[in-house]
């Protein structure tokens, strides 16, 4: 979803950081994206390339660290792995799951010059 806006958000974070930390070029960007964040990695890479053209991150490599989806099953009272936001508990099949991890969308670090 909305990968273009996210890519613009990433570029803004990079530009803010460039001002604070005085660097002029970015060669690699590491993102942490949760499995349940609804982000299409291929669309994100495409949009990132478009948005960063002629910026300080032009041509930068985008590395995506996938974080697993987890949820709290109210029936089993335990943390279970989730692959979809409306998934069912792999233990008991209940939909009474509360997502506890995997919705992250974070810029982790940059390699800069």
């Amino acid at each position: 979803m909305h990968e273009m806006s996210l890519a613009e958000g990433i570029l803004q974070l990079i530009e803010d950081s460039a001002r604070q930390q005085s660097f002029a070029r970015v060669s690699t960007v590491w993102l942490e994206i949760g499995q349940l964040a609804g982000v299409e990695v291929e669309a994100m890479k495409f949009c990132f390339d478009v948005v960063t053209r002629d910026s300080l991150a032009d041509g930068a490599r985008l590395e995506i660290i996938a974080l697993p989806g987890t949820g709290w099953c109210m029936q089993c009272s335990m943390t279970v792995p989730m692959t979809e936001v409306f998934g069912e508990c792999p233990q008991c099949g209940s939909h009474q799951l509360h997502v506890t991890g995997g919705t992250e969308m974070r810029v982790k670090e940059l390699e800069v010059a």
Partner: protein
Amino acid sequence: MCTTCGCGAGEVKIDGEHAHHEHDHVHADGTTHKHDHDHDHDHDHQHAAAATHEHPHAHAHPHSYAPAHSHAPGVSTKRMVQIEQDILSKNNAYAAENRQHLVERGIFALNLVSSPGSGKTTLLVKTIEMLDGRQRVAVIEGDQQTSQDAERIRATGAPAIQINTGKGCHLDAHMVGRAMGKLELPEDSMLMIENVGNLVCPAAFDLGEAHKVVILSVTEGEDKPIKYPDMFRAATLMLMNKCDLLPHLTFSVPRAIEFARRVNPGIEVIEVSATTGQGMDAWLAWLEGGAAAANAAKLATVDALKRRIAELEARLPAAASSRS
């Protein structure tokens, strides 16, 4: 251009605002300077296959150079910079500002989301009419183009401001903050933000509202909640609109509710028809309950502040006498 949703930026228009923007450039050598553009546009857009632009700009460029050379030539200065920031942190910061502004003034704000054509604007018009002045309502309308929806709201007598997002597929908190400034919302009123018709992108963008309300019309598929789970998960209330048409459709209300609860076990549901008025009483009661809660929260904050000031004032003479 995003292949997923056609989202783009840079073409946002808010009623009564002129284009003005400021750039910060960072050059390859580390030099930064700031442009302050004051655009005096004379648009001549002919967007065809061969796009021709004619922008005679009147630029005022106060440049301020700040060279920041920290490297010796020829020495590689590659290094790692920790960021650890949420991609949406900028939006979330604006949303927090909006929320604080609203809560401090006891304003009950809702972010209305749905697919295009679910009847959001008709529902809003009916809602404002039925509230009949018991609550002051202001509306922010988001659409890619045209101000038709804002005009429909203004016809009810309620103030409305249109945001055109251009290519953008959702409203963001910064746009809404600017529009709120123009509306000059009175205390203890309601603010309805009608988002761009889109069941995907607006889910991720907090605008500072108290609740997201998702509108699902019964002419759509009953499986929409599981097809677009993010939106139904983000919403507090689902309004099932156009219920007067149910006799003509195969839409199963219990199945739609079951799908919505599968994604969001706590979601509330009200069945309404903006055309016949069916279920509108329950919706109005929900709204007035929310408005009363917003008002009570404001008073609690005000009372807490008054108590705090009284406490501090009580300590003042004591502090003064202990010094002397």
